[in-house]
């Protein structure tokens, strides 16, 4: 009898855990594409234009991604210092993360204010139902204390991530995506953005 009761309790516990897991998924895409514990890429196009592209840390990586998107004729507005007021009718927000002290100087903003700006924008986007793509394309040159301070909060709130693998040798971004069931495509080079990024958008 005791064994039977223990089995029933274990079954109830397991079912409740499954129910909790389903409700805790951070995004539609994640629940469809990435079971927790395994890093999975995006399986279908779920993002829509118009797109707002911004920087996360003021490295020039966002400008290079903007150049690529321009060449691909994607419907994108580029604002390195975008705030919630710039969201307009955007359906997707792309944050290209990478800290640069020169870039922060050029933008006239310090790291603390930059992080506050990013979080205000990302939170407003999430509240408005705008999907968020986090990108890290600068490789190992865009890692370190400054960049990492922007990576963690952005990736935790993303619906999808694209990462140049040379920048994630320690598994920081892969770990965040895995832990939060965020689909993540690891790419060998920034040139692969030309294939994975358009594939994420509904034609």
């Amino acid at each position, binding site marked *: 009898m005791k064994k039977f009761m223990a089995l029933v309790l274990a079954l109830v516990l397991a079912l409740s855990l499954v129910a909790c897991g389903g409700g805790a998924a951070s995004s539609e895409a994640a629940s469809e594409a990435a079971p927790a514990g395994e890093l999975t890429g995006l399986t279908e196009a779920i993002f829509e234009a118009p797109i707002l592209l911004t920087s996360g840390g003021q490295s*020039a990586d966002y*400008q290079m991604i903007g*150049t690529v998107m321009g060449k691909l004729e994607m419907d994108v507005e580029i604002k390195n210092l975008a705030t919630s007021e710039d969201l307009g009718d955007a359906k997707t927000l792309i944050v290209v993360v990478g800290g*640069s002290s*020169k870039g922060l*100087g*050029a933008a006239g903003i310090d790291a603390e204010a930059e992080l506050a700006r990013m979080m205000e924008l990302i939170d407003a986007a999430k509240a408005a139902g705008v999907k968020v793509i986090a990108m890290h394309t600068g490789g*190992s*040159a865009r890692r370190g204390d400054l960049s990492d301070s922007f990576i963690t909060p952005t990736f935790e709130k993303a619906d999808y991530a694209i990462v140049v693998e040379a920048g994630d040798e320690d598994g920081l971004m892969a770990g965040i995506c895995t832990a939060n069931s965020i689909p993540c495509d690891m790419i060998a080079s920034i040139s692969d953005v030309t294939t994975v990024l358009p594939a994420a958008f509904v034609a």
Partner: protein
Amino acid sequence: MEKNKKLISGVLCLVLAVAIIVTTSMNFLAVREVPYPMMGPSVSEVKMLSDWNPNLKDTNGDTPVYILKGEKEGGSMLILGGTHPNEPSGYMSATLFIENAVVEQGTVYVIPYVNHSAATHNDPGEGNLQYFTLTTKSGERTFRFGSRATNPIDQWPDPDVYVHYPSGQQLSGSETRNINRAYPGRPDGNLTENMAYGVMELIRNEDIDIGFDLHEASPEYPVINATVSHQVSMDIASVGCMNLLMGGIEMSLEQSPTNFHGLTHREWGDASDIRAAILMETANASQGRLRGATTIEQVLGGRDKCYTKSLELGFLYVPWEEVGHPIEERCGRHLEGIKQYSLAHNEVNPEEPIVYSGVPGYQELYLDATREELDGTHLAKFLM
């Protein structure tokens, strides 16, 4: 007899002293001789920087400007080597360009030693070399290894604090002799400010569209394997940097800070109508604080045991392998960068293109070389 002995020893000492004085004086004066590039196929004229700033005439700050003119009219490009003559990939890239480029459209101005005065001394306190030699197509050629700053014989003493004109920015007094803190310069300033003013006058009077300033830095410096661009040229720099990355060359792109004055990537854009102001940095072990003794293998071969150890300890910001950063790789990066950024310029400004060929790039200089040749031996094959 005793008197004669004293006289003889006195004369001998005097002769010895004179011999030492003559030898060291000759050596001291020889350092002032800067070996210039040979005339490549497109060099149409060699002017002096004093043609744009007469204050430099008959000073050690005057320097040759090689003009490579294409058959067709087009845009204009400026390449600076030797901003810091202790960064050999800068002036060696300029030399390779002058001796190999066939300019088809537009005009290219190349200044191999923009701070000529800094090329006429070195930093003995750093244990630096004075010269290095390469066996080129025409035989053995000697190149100078200079200093970061203007020769104190030409400009001295330094103030305690250097106040940049016109911003009023304050830096360490030794930066007074650093031409890359002196732009836009001024005609009534010191020699270094006059050199910078000469370059600015060249840019303004020749309507330079795109300008490059070629540098090296210590491997532990964060802005390494990098391009820094004025905001006016971020469109061109983004396209060019993407193309470099797609070609397998690691390069990061930085926008020039608006509040750091005196540098080419800031002041060229602020003080002229230039369309692109670009500075590139490669990694040079012989400049680093972590290095061992300064040797020719380190300067040209780019190898250093202390840097290999530093990598193990996690002190470096650039990938480091035992092969190091040989001069072929460093010049290859600069010349490939000039090519890709000028192509990007042509894409953005198709009405005024700059078209050239014949200059070896990353593939020819670095990837095509055997490991044994990566010490200047392979690079020398492209020198006249």
